[in-house]
């Protein structure tokens, strides 16, 4: 496989440009997931534990938003951040911050929807116990989040996978500027358009490898946590 060889050469060659691109990809996607988690987890928990008129519709919409097309999110954030848009004065368009915002918007529904499902399922199991033991609302949320932590971690990984793999938003709001907003995915798109398909595929293999490493790290975290609990 010529492409695998290219991927290896890229890694072994230790090209600083490549590492800068990899670093930016990780920074942008991990930051986006962190922000989306800070907002999405409480949102999911809130939705799981409350009942109100139209709740079913909200759940359906939230689940539906998991399929937000990146290019639409990119366009929306672009129009917001453009100098002619409402937030134009911030001067954020074509910066890594803009890319983080766009990816956070993209990932937020995934994390919120999966968190809601996880917590709601646990809530059904625990409801009687909570009532019998007289656990208050804060204690309930803490217990549910804690016991559902591994499923919630999977929700974070789903969000990260979505963010790290997408090219639509970062291309539009980042502009694929060399050395500034170029990520792995926009670099792959660029090399494809230059007709350098082996290099594009090499970069692609590298990106998949990095996503695997992040997932392996999460798995290790989980294993360590479980070992700790039984010990």
């Amino acid at each position, binding site marked *: 496989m010529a492409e695998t060889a290219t991927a290896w050469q890229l890694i072994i060659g230790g090209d600083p440009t490549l590492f800068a691109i990899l*670093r*930016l990809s990780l*920074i*942008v996607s*991990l*930051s986006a997931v*962190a922000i989306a*988690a800070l907002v999405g987890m409480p949102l999911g928990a809130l939705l799981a534990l409350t009942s109100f008129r139209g709740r079913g519709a909200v759940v359906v919409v939230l689940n539906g938003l998991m399929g937000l097309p990146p290019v639409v999110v990119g366009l929306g954030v672009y129009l917001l951040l*453009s*100098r*002619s*848009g409402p937030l*134009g*004065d911030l*001067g954020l*368009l*074509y*910066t*890594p*911050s803009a890319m983080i915002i766009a990816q956070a918007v993209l990932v937020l529904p995934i994390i919120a929807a999966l968190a809601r499902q996880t917590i709601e399922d646990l809530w059904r199991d625990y409801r009687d116990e909570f009532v019998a033991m007289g656990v208050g609302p804060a204690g309930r949320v803490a217990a549910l989040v*804690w016991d559902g*932590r591994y499923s919630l*971690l999977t929700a974070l990984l789903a969000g990260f996978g979505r963010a790290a793999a997408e090219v639509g938003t970062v291309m539009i709001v980042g*502009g*694929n*500027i*060399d050395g*500034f907003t170029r990520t792995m995915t926009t670099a792959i798109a*660029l090399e*494809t*358009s*230059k*007709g*350098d*398909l082996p290099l594009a595929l090499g970069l692609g293999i590298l990106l998949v490898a990095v996503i695997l490493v992040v997932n392996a*790290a999460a798995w290790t*975290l989980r294993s*360590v*946590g479980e070992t*700790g*609990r039984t010990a």
Partner: protein
Amino acid sequence: MIHRRRVLAALLAAVLPAFAGLAAPAAAQDKSITVASTTSTEDSGLFGHILPIFEKETGIAVKVVAQGTGQALETARRGDADVVFVHAKAQEEAFVAEGFGVERFDVMYNDFVIVGPASDPAGIAGTANATAALKRIDEAKAPFVSRGDKSGTHTAELRLWKEAGLDPASEGGDWYRSIGQGMGAALNTASAMNAYVLADRATWLSFKNRGDLKVLVEGDKRLFNQYGVILVNPAKHPHVKADLGQSFIDWLISPEGQTTIADYRIDGQQLFFPNAPEKRT
């Protein structure tokens, strides 16, 4: 609780360097400009050649957003770029006339080429007449890929069809494939389906996935491809970095900038030919 802290610590460890990393580019932003340009200048490696030289001399970092000419001008109209560096003279002059640009300067030129499969089903090889070649492609109903994205190359293609007295873009016909994408994507498409395509020479020379494609028609003076540079009007968009942008334009059209452009070659072939007017006194 220890585990929760561990999870939190891991999360923080992932996020903190992220924000530390963001602070650095923000600081460097002070002396930088954003240039909306075309895919041909970026993909051909021209910017990779000239920008480090410019930055070394002036300390001004140039951030290039490579788009089609139409999109680049739209980006500038919205105020999201300080300078536009594109190749569709009529659109550029309209941009200045609308008040979005200060003044347009010629920078350099090269030419378009009609690329097609070596088997050449329409028999256009060796013709030096671009419109005659298009007529033959139309008659043969041979597959033709159009950019279809309002780029400089697309604009040139539509002009050539018009000069040939044809209008396949609105007449349709499944041999005429409008893909709405950049030059590289158009070449990839043409390469995959053995179609004809109009390409700028710079992108063609730096394109690596040629397959059976080769240059079939070149040298017609109607295939001339002029690049121009314009400062976005600070009267329209007050945040435009007019001084830094003007420094970039002045350098591009200075004898030194012009020589630097001429020096850029791929496999010994010069890609862009400087033709800025003599500096006004």
